[in-house]
């Protein structure tokens, strides 16, 4: 399972490439495979040109895309996103949501936890409403 954190949790002393690669390095993957997979996933999130940039030199939307790339690089079957647009403006939120749709279209289940109702109203997907840690209602997509 891949996780997208609301507060990004990127390592500021590592480049975009190294931040994404970390998810594979901890699993002891071969450097060649790491290089290929990271470049591919950075291409998917349209950040290949920023591979050697440090996270603090990226916009909020770009940082969130790096986090998604890091979560996706190990090819998880489920992607859990915790308030993925919580720190973003509406334009960047839209980019991120479109990215999630692309990821989902490629076969990964995307689970988004959010307080932003506009995100799921227009999604046409299954929505589960929670209140005080309990399921309140459910809308099928």
């Amino acid at each position, binding site marked *: 399972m891949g996780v997208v954190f609301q507060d990004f949790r*990127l*390592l500021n002393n590592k480049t975009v490439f190294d931040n994404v690669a970390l998810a594979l*390095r901890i699993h002891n993957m071969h450097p060649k495979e790491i290089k290929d997979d990271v470049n591919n996933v950075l291409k998917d999130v349209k950040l290949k040109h920023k591979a050697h940039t440090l996270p603090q030199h990226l916009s909020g939307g770009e940082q969130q895309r790096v986090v998604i790339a890091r979560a996706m690089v190990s090819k998880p079957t489920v992607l859990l996103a915790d308030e993925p647009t919580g720190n973003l403006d509406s334009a960047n939120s839209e980019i991120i949501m479109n990215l999630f749709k692309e990821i989902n279209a490629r076969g990964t289940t995307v689970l988004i936890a959010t307080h932003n109702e506009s995100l799921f109203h227009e999604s046409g997907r299954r929505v589960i409403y929670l209140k005080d840690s309990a399921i309140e209602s459910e809308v099928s997509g």
Partner: protein
Amino acid sequence: MRVLLYSIQSALKNLWAEKWINLLTTFSVGIGLLILSAFVTVTLNMDSVLKKWGKSFGIVVYLDDAISAETTGTVRELFKQDTDILEVIYISEDEALKELRNILGEDASILENLENNPLPSSFELKLKRDLLDPVFVKKKAGEIKKMSGIAEVQYGEKWLTSLNTVSRLMKASSIFLGGAILIAIIFITYNTIKIFFYRRKEEIETLKLLGATKSFIRLPFLIEGLVLGIIGGIIGSLALFGIHSLIVAKGFNFMPSVRAIIISIPLEIFLSIPIVGALMSIAGSFFAVGKIRY
């Protein structure tokens, strides 16, 4: 192996990123090891000097004036068979007088008026170096005195006691000082690694959330400690070499007595300083990373 390589790479990057605190740590470790190695060197050299002095130590056994040649021979044989005795030297009455004349030099004329040779014949016994314990030598002298044909037994009791005290004092100081410095090095590295750990707390949290294992998180810290210890040791080694060279080149002119203490430094000392530094630092790092909670 790949994790190890990545950890080494990561540790070196982190060491460079925190270069000022690391500089302070390596110098502290280096100075500690310098003091320790200098003390060990002086102790080793003092010990070798004491061993040399110990070689000249002997028990002088004066024989009765009336002792027969046969009894003298028997006593000599008994001494030679004694495994505690390394060397037996017989000094006859005439040899003793001759030696006295040599010592007196120009004043030897005072001996001309003597009707008889007043000096007794004697044996000079050299004991084995490891047996030069004041209690043992006193006991041995007592046993020899009880033998037939022996008039008196003499040895430098005070000198031997002083020698023994100095030797014990130096060994005890070495252990105490060595222990204190080694603990200090462990403590310095422990604190440095703890500081690194707190500074990288967020990074560790992220690694944990990404599913990193304990060893993946801890390994760079251990490698950082190891490198700090090795560099500290190299600094200590170089400083010791520099100070020793300076003393040999200049110091002997001002303090000739220093020559007796600082003779040479074995290569093993120079090589062992970085190894000791590495071992102590890795121990400090090990205790520090043990505090990382999961």
